[in-house]
């Protein structure tokens, strides 16, 4: 009887261990297995920057906590020689940009080169974090710049009046409800908001000046909120070179002293349905070789 139960226990343990091992294998970062090859980490920043945990829908938010954790992991991993930050972000929270910037600085402090590769858009907060990298590589048509800070409040008082909605506010201080949509912004409140915008703007300028090695006046001339194409940004010194992700990886590898084609380690996990959609797209392209190339101009 004992032998029979031992047999079942051994079988159960083997099955459970196999499932756990398969789970770990699936969760492991995907990379090619060339032994001894130099490794470059790839961290993706996609969507609006938020300081919290972010959402499940890729392309909508990029969590600063998660991006910083991936950068810190790259810093601790002795096999990773450099990191490429692939940025596709219109910006977002300044605090989120600062958290990612600090992680980039820690990484650079550990002696690992960091290259920012700009995708469709790396504007405002997206450019903020790019400016902290050793080098910025942009596509000629990437949208970047938008150096500036904005706070928007909505004044819905007239709408509330038409709908017959009244808002009663009980507050501990005169500015506790500043920015309330139930009434127009008071001049003193506008001044407070403006001082906040100015302060964060100065912080943004600090990052760009330090990262791009440009004097403050020159940066201020570019930092009126305008957007640049990658090519225009190269001309004014906001990016270092034109190129795609592949060229950014090559540069990162060379900067880290990796002479050959590096192994790229994806450090940003994708949601399960992302692979599904990309896979279907790839299969369609594979089975329909005559499909014309897509050109998008928005």
């Amino acid at each position: 009887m004992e032998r029979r139960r031992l047999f079942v226990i051994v079988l159960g343990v083997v099955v459970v261990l196999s499932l756990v091992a398969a789970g770990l294998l699936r969760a492991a970062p995907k990379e090619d297995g060339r032994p001894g090859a130099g490794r470059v980490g790839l961290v993706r920043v996609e969507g609006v920057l938020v300081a919290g945990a972010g959402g499940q829908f890729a392309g909508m938010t990029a969590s600063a906590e998660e991006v910083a954790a991936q950068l810190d992991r790259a810093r601790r991993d002795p096999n990773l020689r450099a990191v490429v930050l692939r940025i596709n972000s219109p910006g977002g929270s300044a605090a989120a940009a600062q958290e990612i910037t600090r992680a980039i600085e820690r990484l650079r402090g550990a002696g690992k080169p960091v290259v920012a590769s700009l995708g469709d858009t790396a504007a405002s907060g997206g450019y903020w974090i790019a400016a902290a990298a050793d080098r910025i590589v942009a596509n000629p048509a990437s949208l970047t710049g938008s150096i500036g800070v904005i706070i928007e409040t909505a004044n819905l008082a007239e709408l509330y009046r038409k709908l017959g909605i009244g808002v009663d506010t009980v507050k501990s201080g005169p500015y506790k409800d500043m920015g309330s949509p139930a009434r127009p912004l008071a001049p003193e409140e506008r001044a407070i908001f403006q001082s906040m915008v100015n302060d964060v703007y100065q912080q943004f300028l600090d990052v760009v000046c330090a990262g791009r090695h440009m004097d403050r006046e020159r940066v201020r001339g570019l930092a009126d909120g305008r957007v640049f194409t990658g090519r225009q940004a190269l001309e004014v010194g906001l990016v270092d070179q034109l190129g795609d992700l592949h060229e950014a990886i090559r540069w990162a590898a060379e900067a880290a002293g990796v002479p050959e084609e590096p192994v790229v380690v994806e450090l940003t996990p994708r949601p399960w349905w992302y692979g599904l959609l990309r896979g279907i797209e790839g299969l369609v392209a594979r089975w329909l070789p005559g499909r014309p190339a897509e050109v998008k101009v928005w």
Partner: protein
Amino acid sequence: MSLPVLADLVAGVYLHPVRTFREVAVSAPVGRALFLYLLVSAAGALMAVLTTPRLAPHPQLAAVSGGFGFAVAVMFLAWALAKLFVYSGLLHLVAEFFGGRGSARGVFTVYGLASLPTLVLVPWHLLVTWLPGYLRVGLTVPVALGIFIWTVVLLILGVREVHGLTTARAALVVLVPPAALALGVLAAAASLLAGVGAHLGIP
């Protein structure tokens, strides 16, 4: 559901199937069989989900299988459950045609327990992810065939014990439904081809 009793049932199916199925014929542990069947199906589906992206021949296929993974696993479990009811019912019906006197509960239990050998494929699937492609195919085919034959033998033994049939009749009970299905598919394919040929004017 006591674990030692469950363990004895599992070990019995692996090590002493005839004796175990003889006990099933007297008193069918339907709940335990259903539980084990679902456990084995879930383990197999989970392992397939976890390993398929690495085994897919193309990166795109790997991405699709990885993306669909858990949805496919749930569908697989639903399919497995439906198969358990439908196929064990069919086996019971055919067994009665062949003169069997057993209960449907007994056949249901036998069908559930006969899935136990497929549990061996769970660690096997993990092992093959490290094998080169040619070796993977070369070894998986005989192993999968071996497990399939093992399962069929268990079904035959179980139907024999539950319905009190001879081994030959029990084998017929188990093999007639898939054979009939295969013949039906062949006949349908042949008529389809004949129809297409006639439509195209091919003699």
